[in-house]
């Protein structure tokens, strides 16, 4: 399983880098994230030892960049007719899905690696809270992993990469911005429970907790469970769609 999955990762990553897709995503990421960090986040004007002005924009950036990585994973296979080739190979559907997921996540890792000179710069010229920064990168990896899993799932429902991109964008922005407070309020629960539930379901709240160095199990499990749910539903969706 591992070897075949690695071959899928290799093939998917290679096709991303062979075309313009990965390069465009990486360039756009580094340009926009630096712009946001320095000009909107006020890199020099706030206490930035933990690179807060960089990390605070990541969920929104991921919301529109990750769909560009995941949009073609299944939609293009369906559009080009290669799905039948792939699904009649002696490899489990789970391995294929994991392969596709890891290839998208690997490019996200490349994005974050591109931003590490900022960390080095901070260490050389200012004071850096390295543990906090590490925790921020960990949060970024988790949130991008969630978006990759959900993006894979959305792509498996679409026959066109463009449609997949749009749907992913809508879903990711919605879950980045919303804390489901309106929905929870409508349940008429006690205030303390309402707040607790709202924090529990809010992606941003877990992300900011991690970013601030609170690496609790609840925060990690939130992202891990979201990833598992996305990948598991992806298996079900592909099975359902092909039958």
């Amino acid at each position, binding site marked *: 399983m591992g070897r*075949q999955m690695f071959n*899928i990762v290799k*093939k998917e990553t290679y096709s991303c880098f062979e*075309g313009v897709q990965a390069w465009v995503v990486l360039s756009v990421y580094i340009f926009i994230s630096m712009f946001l960090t320095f000009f909107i986040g006020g890199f020099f004007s706030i206490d930035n030892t933990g690179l807060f002005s960089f990390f605070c924009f990541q969920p929104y950036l991921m919301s529109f960049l990750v769909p560009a990585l995941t949009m073609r994973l299944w939609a293009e296979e369906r559009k080009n*007719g290669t799905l*039948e080739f792939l699904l*009649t*190979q*002696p*490899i489990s559907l789970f391995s294929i899905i994991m392969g596709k997921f890891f290839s998208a996540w690997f490019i996200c890792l490349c994005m974050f690696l591109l931003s590490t000179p900022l960390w080095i710069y901070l260490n050389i010229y200012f004071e850096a809270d390295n543990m906090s920064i590490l925790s921020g990168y960990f949060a970024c990896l988790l949130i991008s992993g969630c978006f990759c899993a959900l993006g894979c799932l959305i792509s498996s429902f679409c026959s066109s990469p463009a449609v997949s991109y749009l749907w992913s964008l809508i879903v990711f922005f919605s879950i980045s911005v919303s804390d489901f407070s309106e929905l929870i309020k409508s349940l008429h629960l006690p205030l303390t429970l309402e707040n607790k539930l709202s924090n529990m379901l809010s992606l941003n709240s877990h992300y900011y907790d991690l970013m601030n160095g609170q690496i609790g199990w609840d925060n990690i499990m939130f992202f891990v469970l979201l990833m598992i749910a996305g990948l598991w539903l992806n298996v079900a969706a592909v099975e359902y769609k092909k039958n």
Partner: protein
Amino acid sequence: MIVVKNLCKDYGNIHAVNNVNFCISKGEIVSLLGPNGAGKTTLMRLITGYIEATSGEVRIFDKDIKTSRIECLQRIGYVPESGFLYNEMRVFDFLHYAAQLRNMNNTDFQENLQQVIYNLDLKEVINQKIETLSKGFKRRVGIASALIHNPDILILDEPTEGLDPNQKVSLRQYLKNYGRNKIIIISTHIMEEVEAMAGRVILLNHGKLVKDTSPEELKKLFPEHNIETAFYKITNEVN
């Protein structure tokens, strides 16, 4: 050996494959015949495990495709009707990828690669991108990907579509030789192909198996003595 038992596949109210039974042994080249929408492609997809049957079973060398899908697929090479190639890849990379997905080691891959390149005459395009190839070459690359692991069962949907007459003749000859100790299932609309290659014909109509016989016997069924007329008369009689 392929055993198909009481196989059914429904899409809503449509019976795409309706209670089909047959058995294919080693050394047989079987041609799947039938008008458009008869259920040929669905039947091939069921045999390869691409789609799940509504009821019934498919056994590949005594293993159920549903429960032992990966083991069964190790022994099958499948060429769908069209457009299943990764156009952005080079021919070599695509064949290498197909071999990697089948967990083949490099020595076996190199050995089989030389064979398929020679048999399917792919030497001149091996380093070319698939998107730049002609329809005939694309078809041959597809067949090469199914043959790269030297499968015991080869399932081909319209294999000679897009090939020129010379390529058709050489491919038929090659498949005929290959089928001597393997199982080949070919879906086709070309009757001369059936006569040239197949030792057995399975005729489907509206998802049902309506004839399972040899091409010679099929010809003898009607005074005109040709497969085309037999095909026409049988499929219209059922209608």
